[in-house]
């Protein structure tokens, strides 16, 4: 390593993984990850490297140049090291510790790859993060693996979709603003989509559009309370303990209820989001997807 730079994996290779091997879902989901984990284990054993290697081209794209490139095999080493040494605390998806989301480039204490390598090697005093005995190369492969998770998402593309048309559909026919917010515009009741293009792949977004009930992330689940006075309030459950619940209600109020004041309280099984399988044509859906994928927040170069 020289200087404080970004470790890159070749973007083309990553795109190939998205197209071909199903890695695009590796960063999230639970049960379905196992298939990908198995494939990856197979690759490590050299069983299925053919398609993978075909994709490996040297593309030094973007404004950030790599100080050290890692081959897919080396990223595989990082993946293995991560799963064995890190995943028990950080979770398979890198989001096991609150406030840290390794798969999405969200770190509490690191602003560069060198910082990450230092932390991986030496731990963080006074916290649960222990040192490892990794050398620089090994720690680097772990960072490359984590970066590859972000890159996989960032390199998603929608074939035949037009983001500008998608934006118009999002705001008009789709009615998405009634629940979702993008850069300060729209409702806060549903998930904020300002950087959804960095968080979700095309496949995931498409699945959410056509079958919103298939997977609702825990933090997005709808909740319903009925007060003893008979008022019904729905919203997103933000937090719950033995005696109280905290929700963002449908009027965008932060509300805290004492359970003893409630007649009932429970999750709502179904997502409030309608399916857009028939509400939008295939072309319209591709346009909306293209728009969603283009939403990269404000800090992404």
């Amino acid at each position, binding site marked *: 390593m020289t200087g404080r730079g970004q470790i890159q994996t070749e973007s083309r290779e990553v795109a190939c993984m998205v197209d071909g091997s199903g890695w695009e879902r590796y960063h999230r989901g639970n049960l379905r990850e196992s298939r990908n984990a198995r494939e990856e284990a197979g690759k490590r054993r050299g069983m299925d490297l053919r398609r993978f290697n075909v994709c490996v081209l040297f593309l030094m794209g973007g404004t950030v140049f790599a100080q050290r490139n890692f081959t897919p095999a080396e990223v595989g080493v990082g993946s293995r090291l991560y799963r064995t040494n890190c995943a028990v605390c950080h979770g398979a998806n890198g989001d096991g510790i609150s406030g840290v989301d390794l798969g999405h480039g969200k770190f509490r204490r690191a602003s560069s790859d060198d910082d990450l390598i230092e932390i991986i090697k030496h731990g963080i005093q006074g916290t649960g993060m222990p040192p490892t005995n990794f050398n620089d190369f090994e720690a680097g492969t772990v960072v490359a693996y984590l970066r590859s998770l972000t890159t996989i998402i960032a390199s998603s593309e929608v074939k035949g979709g037009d983001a500008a048309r998608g934006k118009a559909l999002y705001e008009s026919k789709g009615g998405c603003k009634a629940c979702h917010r993008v850069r300060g515009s729209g409702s806060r009741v549903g998930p904020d989509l300002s950087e959804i293009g960095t968080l979700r792949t095309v496949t995931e977004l498409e699945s959410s559009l056509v079958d919103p009930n298939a997977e609702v992330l825990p933090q997005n689940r709808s909740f319903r309370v009925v007060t003893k006075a008979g008022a019904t309030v729905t919203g997103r459950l933000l937090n*719950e*303990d033995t005696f109280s619940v905290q929700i963002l209600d449908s009027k965008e109020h932060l509300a805290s209820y004492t359970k003893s004041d409630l007649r009932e309280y429970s999750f709502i099984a179904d997502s409030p989001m309608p399916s857009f399988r028939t509400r939008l044509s295939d072309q319209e859906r591709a346009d909306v997807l293209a728009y969603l994928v283009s939403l990269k927040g404000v800090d992404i170069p």
Partner: protein
Amino acid sequence: MNRRALILFALTGLVFAPVLRSQVTFDRILNAKQEPQNWLSYSGGVQSQRHSSLNQVTPENAKNLELQWIFQARSLEKFEATPLVVDGIMYTVQAPNDVVALDAVTGRIFWIYSYTPSKDARVCCGRVNRGLAILGDTLFMGTIDGHLIAIDAKSGSPIWNVTVAKAEAGYSLMHAPLVVKDKVIMGTAGGEYGIRGFLAAFDARTGKEAWRFYTVPGPGEKGHETWAGDSWMHGAASIWVTGSYDPDTNLTFWGVGNPGPDWNGDVRPGDNLYSDSVIALDADTGELKWHYQFSPHDEFDYDSVQVPVLADIQWQGKDGVKRPRKVMLWANRNGFFYVLDRTNGEFLLGKPFAKVTWANGFDEKGRPMKVPGMKPTPEGTVVYPGVQGATNWYSPSFSPHTGLMYIPTWENYSALFITEPAEYEEGRRYTAGMPRSVVPSMRPGQVNNRSEEEGYGAVRAIDPQTGDRKWEFKMTDVTDSGILTTASDVLFVGGREGYFYALDARNGSVLWRMTVGGQVANGPMTYSVGGKQYVAVAAGNSLFSFALRQ
């Protein structure tokens, strides 16, 4: 000062001065029940019931508990230590390995012994420490870099410091040592690093090792045949929670951790003794007298590192007549509650206390009958309880007064167990796979949005006679808190939500609760100074002491 006060002062001096001067002999530790104002060992007594005969706080007045003081640790690690209290002085550990002596009435610091562990220390799950032991005027602490240190209780100066195990190979010392007679007994953690676990006794005066018992038998030793090939060399079987002692049999009992590698049993065919077992050793020689294995050939990380709770209860014999019996009560990480005869290890009862899918009962000898197919696979297998267990190292409590065992419980909790090939390398994790949350992560975040079906925490009161549940106190989030009971039937417990409770030990109703603002990951304890009962617990990074409003 008037004359009357002077006389009172002199009398007080007469009464208290000899106590203040006396050392903590082993006799005092053995008979800790006779001085309930003190807390002389990790679980409050060698029987490890975490039960106190102090009775000033009652179900009627517990609502008047109020904060006396807070000690804020300069550490962001989990606060897992249970303090000791000796004649008004409290000793505890600020993670990872600073010993602190406090005034138990005010929380003011007398001294801090600061120990900086080597950078070689490898810990799987936090740079934590669970507490101290005391004998005479000497405190004992295990460190995360494999040292056992004796510290002068008056000055905080180190007396001796011995290397027990190799830190860079993943050995670390976490639990509060146990003093038996003139020895300090200490086990080693490192079950995720392919260590070969052991328990050892050290001369309290010199630190010289007196005996060592390997929890993974070597070639020629009994039990070695339960490990295929060389797998015993990295068989783990760590020890990271304090054991118990029974003076009648001179046995010391310890819970042993998971076999290594955790999630791939194919490389270690066999039962893998003495992983996931309780071992009963002669306290003078370390010789194994009996063992009982809770989870033979475990592939779910079901460490049996629970505190062995010793009780003398009436037990119905085969002839239907109840007689006094020396038992051991054990709520295991694997989801079963056990009653064993502690004189010989005989299996008396085993019953699930939470949802279990890996076994469906026991054969006549008390061996669990495993459910076929319940093992980690490359694709992943969902098993209840999940990797953190239906309980874990969190201290349970047994109240001789109610006759009930109180268990910190995780219910409806599962994990997806995934296996991978295993490869040992010194100082590296040797786990061969990983568990995943099937539902929202069970990691201790500050926010909970899990449903009850996805897992919740509870205090469960179990009748040892039947294994039946008498009552349950449900918490929305899971709990890493230990449990304390008192002779006045008050039960103290916390949880991840940051509440600290006094419950009625008879029925689980909430008598009092306090927001302590951080998760409780240690066992509450109680003590008394000047006739006033205190209850202490750590939450987040602070230690709190409560007493009744005056």
